[in-house]
Every structure is written in structure tokens, then in C-alpha cells.
């Protein structure tokens, strides 16, 4: 566990071949990415982008065609590499014959926790994910979808993992529940747990993650810190009758310039630059048509990355 990275994927590739036609499907194509220890990382992508296959390769549920992955420096194909991982799959199917406590006991035992530790951890984690103790002896088959999601999170946390891999963690959970899950994850992040989220819910990812990667058709389309990727935030200033010399001066400060029918539109990354531009424009009697604060959301970044 000496690596500075929780996850390292090196040219990870998974090719599925149909048995009859031998047609190739590149579910994950030459993806390399690194997730720092303690980071909150979001893996985004449209349906069929290869996100789940990528995650399954980290867990060795899917064998890579080429390339490899390491978890805290350990080869991901080794069972020991999975010891620090807590995983919540999408569309999980917990056996309905379990009670809530029984299920946690089973998965805790598979993680190697002895009986005494299990007995102590189970009610703690159950309460931590917001499930009342009275539901502990209730059959899982009678749980609502939101409760099942919380129970799934509880099984992922039962052995105090240092890397949490969550596939659509807020799926089926109401807004209050989502907020609670986010609070739990924030608490874990503060404890230094690396959190890797695979999600469609861009707003959730934007609110919670420091870094993201966007997969599209199996390839890594974009990756980076959320604040860098959404740096399009700022102010859009539209003005008319702008002299050429001033326009050139403002172009140097603007992040974006576009000619419009009756003038020109500038995008400034900060309020100070926008105010300075207004001062210059007014000093030369230019007409200010509009000044609008703008933001480039992760959704815009996502759509742009996927469309490219």
C-alpha cells in the first residue's frame, strides 16, 4: 500500500468478440488514468461508454484483454488487491433470503472480519447509512429500493475500506437520501478514503468529486480536475460600437470573443476583468448591451466531450 495512487490503469483494454461472427466490440479501449489516494473521482460517460466494464476490471470481475490495473500499487487481478476496496454495484441483486444484518454479516465475513468485529461493526454501519436498527432483522426482500441502496452502501463500508467504488450510489434514493449519502461520503473523504464514483448524475458528481474522467465509446475522452474543466465560468459582456484598437486590447484579456450582428461579445473569466472592460468601454462611449454571469457546468463539458 505504498503507492501514492489508489487506482492506476495502464492502457486498459477490453475487447469482446462475438462467438459466431468474431465481431469485435471494444468496451474499453486503451484507457490510462490515475486516481490519487484520498481523491474523490468521478467516472462519467453515456450509456455503453465502458464505465462499468472499466470498474469490473479493477475488481477483476472482467479480465482485461490487454493492459493492467493496480490498486494501491497491487496488481488488481490478485485477491489481496481487493481487500481495501468497498464496492457497491449498479443493479445489485442481494439474495432476498438474507435479513439486513445477515447480509452484512456474510459480506463482512467474506472480507475476513472475525465474528467479534462483525458483531460490533454491523449495527454501527447500519446506523451510519441511516437504516433503523429495527430493520436489521427484516428480510432484504421487503426493503424498499432506497433502503436497499443504503444497505448496499453499508456492505461496501462494513470492512472500513480505504477505496470506495460506487456504481450509481444515489440510484433510487430520494433527494433527502441523496443528501445523506453525500454527507456520509464527505465524512469518509475527510477520513482519507478514496472515493471513485461511476455515475450518470452529473450534478452529484460535480458537487462531490474533485476530479473526473469522461469515457466515450470505450475511450478516455477527457479527464482532469472539475474546477479546471468547468473554468468556463465567468461573465459575458456584449457591447456595440467598439473601436478596433479597444477590441484588440480586450481580446487579450477575454477568454472568448465572438462577433455579433451589432457588436461584439466577450467572455471574461473573472469579475475584475469584466469590470475593467466595462470601464474601458464606457470611457470610449461604447454601448453596453448586456453583462451576464455565465457558468460552464460539468454537463456542458460532458456534452462537448461526448459530441467531439
Amino acid at each position, binding site marked *: 500500500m505504498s503507492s501514492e495512487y489508489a487506482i492506476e490503469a495502464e492502457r486498459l483494454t477490453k475487447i*469482446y468478440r462475438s462467438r459466431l461472427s468474431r465481431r469485435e466490440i471494444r468496451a474499453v479501449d486503451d484507457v490510462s488514468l490515475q486516481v490519487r489516494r484520498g481523491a474523490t473521482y468521478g467516472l462519467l460517460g453515456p450509456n455503453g461508454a465502458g464505465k462499468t466494464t472499466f470498474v*469490473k476490471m479493477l*475488481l*477483476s*470481475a*472482467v*479480465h482485461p484483454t490487454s493492459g493492467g490495473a493496480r490498486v494501491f500499487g497491487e496488481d488488481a487481478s490478485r*485477491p*489481496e*488487491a*481487493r*481487500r481495501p*476496496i468497498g*464496492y457497491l*454495484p449498479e*443493479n*445489485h*441483486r*442481494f*439474495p*432476498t*433470503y*438474507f435479513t439486513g444484518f*445477515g447480509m452484512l*454479516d*456474510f*459480506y463482512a*465475513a*467474506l*472480507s*475476513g*472480519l*472475525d465474528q467479534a468485529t462483525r458483531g460490533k461493526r454491523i449495527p454501527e454501519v447500519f446506523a451510519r447509512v441511516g437504516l433503523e436498527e429495527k430493520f436489521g432483522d427484516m428480510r432484504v426482500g421487503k426493503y424498499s429500493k432506497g433502503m436497499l441502496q443504503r444497505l448496499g452502501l453499508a*456492505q461496501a463500508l462494513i470492512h472500513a475500506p480505504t477505496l470506495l*467504488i460506487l456504481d450509481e450510489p444515489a440510484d433510487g434514493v430520494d433527494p433527502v437520501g441523496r443528501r445523506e449519502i453525500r454527507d456520509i461520503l464527505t465524512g469518509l473523504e475527510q477520513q482519507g478514503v478514496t472515493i471513485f464514483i461511476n455515475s450518470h448524475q452529473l450534478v452529484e458528481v460535480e458537487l462531490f468529486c474533485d476530479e473526473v474522467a469522461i469515457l466515450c465509446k470505450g475511450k478516455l475522452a477527457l479527464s482532469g480536475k472539475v474546477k479546471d474543466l468547468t473554468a468556463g465560468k465567468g461573465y459575458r459582456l456584449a457591447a456595440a460600437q467598439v473601436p478596433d484598437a479597444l477590441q484588440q486590447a480586450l481580446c487579450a484579456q477575454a477568454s472568448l470573443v465572438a462577433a455579433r450582428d451589432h457588436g461584439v461579445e466577450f467572455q471574461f473569466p473573472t469579475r475584475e476583468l469584466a469590470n475593467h472592460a466595462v470601464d474601458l468601454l464606457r470611457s470610449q462611449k461604447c454601448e453596453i448591451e448586456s453583462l451576464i454571469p455565465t457558468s460552464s457546468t460539468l454537463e456542458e463539458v460532458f456534452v462537448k466531450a461526448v459530441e467531439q
Partner: protein
Amino acid sequence: MTAIVTAALIRDTFREAFARKIFWALFGLSTVLIAFFIFLMRIDVVEGANATVSLFGHTSGRTTEVRRLVDGAYGGIATFLYTWAMFLAVFASAGLIPSILEPGRIELLLSKPVRRSHILLGRYAGNILVVALNSIYLVLAVWIVFGIKTGIWEQQFLVAILTTVFIFAVLLSIVVLAGVLFDSPAVATMITVGLMIMSPILAQTRIMMKLLSSEWSRDAWRIVYYTLPKVYDIGKITLDIVAGHSAPDAWMPVWSSALFGAAMLSAALFVFSKRNF
């Protein structure tokens, strides 16, 4: 760690067997059979010795006849256990392997720091234990009932536990392989039951050697016979032992079936380790 994981996997198999009513169905059936012997076998004791024993409407007073009656009953139970109960056990167990391969469940199992072989073998062992406990319960209970009622304690009857569990372990290896290959309880059952049904036919080797005209067809028959598990032969051996007869050629069917089971299980482990989920 290994013991904790193994115990958890076995417990899980039991939980599922309970939930699917498999365990209770086998247990209930055994109980009915035991009750049948408790209430249907009437013994009149005169001056400390068995005067008459009545079973299935047949009454006997002579010791040799009583022993023959007991041996016959033991043989009947061993046959029941070995055939019908085995069919039921295979039907009941066929779902226990594909169920862990269901999407949404297998990923979670594989995400734990446990080898794939450990997961599969844990299920296999749990499944065998479910059937073994029922066999032990039935055979021991019948043996005790007969022992108490007749004073005859024939220990060779207990061999039925070993042979039943052994042949179930061999058949279960086919269920496991078919399960990991096809994810289908129905296919796993069909293949296993098919082999069980073929076994008495294949066991007629001597007759078939005379009937088959060409050498290659006789070779083919021998290859199939020696390769596949000898359910019928081992059943016959069990009956011979239970009846107190010597069992000639006892080892070939046992070791060749064991070898077949080991090969099936190894193939299942290989397939399971290579699969993507």
C-alpha cells in the same frame, strides 16, 4: 481468514437451501420415512427376545427371518436414498450454483478478497453438506429404530451414508460445471439426470460386448463406460455391502467415478476463473 470465508460460504448455501425449502423438503421426506418405520414395524417381545416382527404386513418369528427382513428393509432404504432421494437432491441443488452467478450478485462476491475457486468450492462443500446431513439423519435414524426394535445392529447399513454422499459429490461436480457453463439450473439438471439414467444401461458392459458386432463400437462403449460416473455400479455395491455380501470389483467404479468428479470440478473451476461477469 480462509476458515471464516469458507464457513460464511457454507452458511450462505445452507441459508439459500433453507429459503428454497430444499433442506426442509429433504428433511421432511426423510422424517416421513423414519416415521413410517417407527409406526409400521410392530415387534412383540417375549421374555426379552423378539417373538415376532411384523413389517409391511409380513410377520416373522424366526431370528434368521427377522435378520432377512431387516436386511431387506435396509436394502430398500439404501435403494430409495440412492435413487429417488439422489434425483431429488440433484433437482434441488441444480439452482444453487447458477444463483450465485446472477448479475448483480456475482460482482459483489468477486469484489471481495476471495479467490474465485474458493467461492465455487465453498458452495460445492455447502451443497454436499446439505445432502450429507439429510443422509446421516435418515440412515442413522432408521438404523437406530431398527436396532432398538429388533436388537439387530448391522453397521454395514451405515455405508449407505458414505456411498450416497460420495456419488452425490460426483454428480454435483457435473451440476457445477454445467452451472458455470450455461448459467441454467434446467440444463444442469438435464445433463446430470441424463448421466444417471445412462448409468444402468452402460453398466451392462458384458452383455453389450456380446451384442456389439464391431471392435470399434465395443471400444467406444468401454471408453464411455469407464469415463462416466458409475452411479449404478456403486449403487449395486452399496446394496451388496448393506446385505452383507462381498462386493467384487468395488474399487474400479469408486476410483473412476472419483476421477471423473475431480475432472469435472477442475473444469468448472477453470471455466469459472476465466469467465467475465
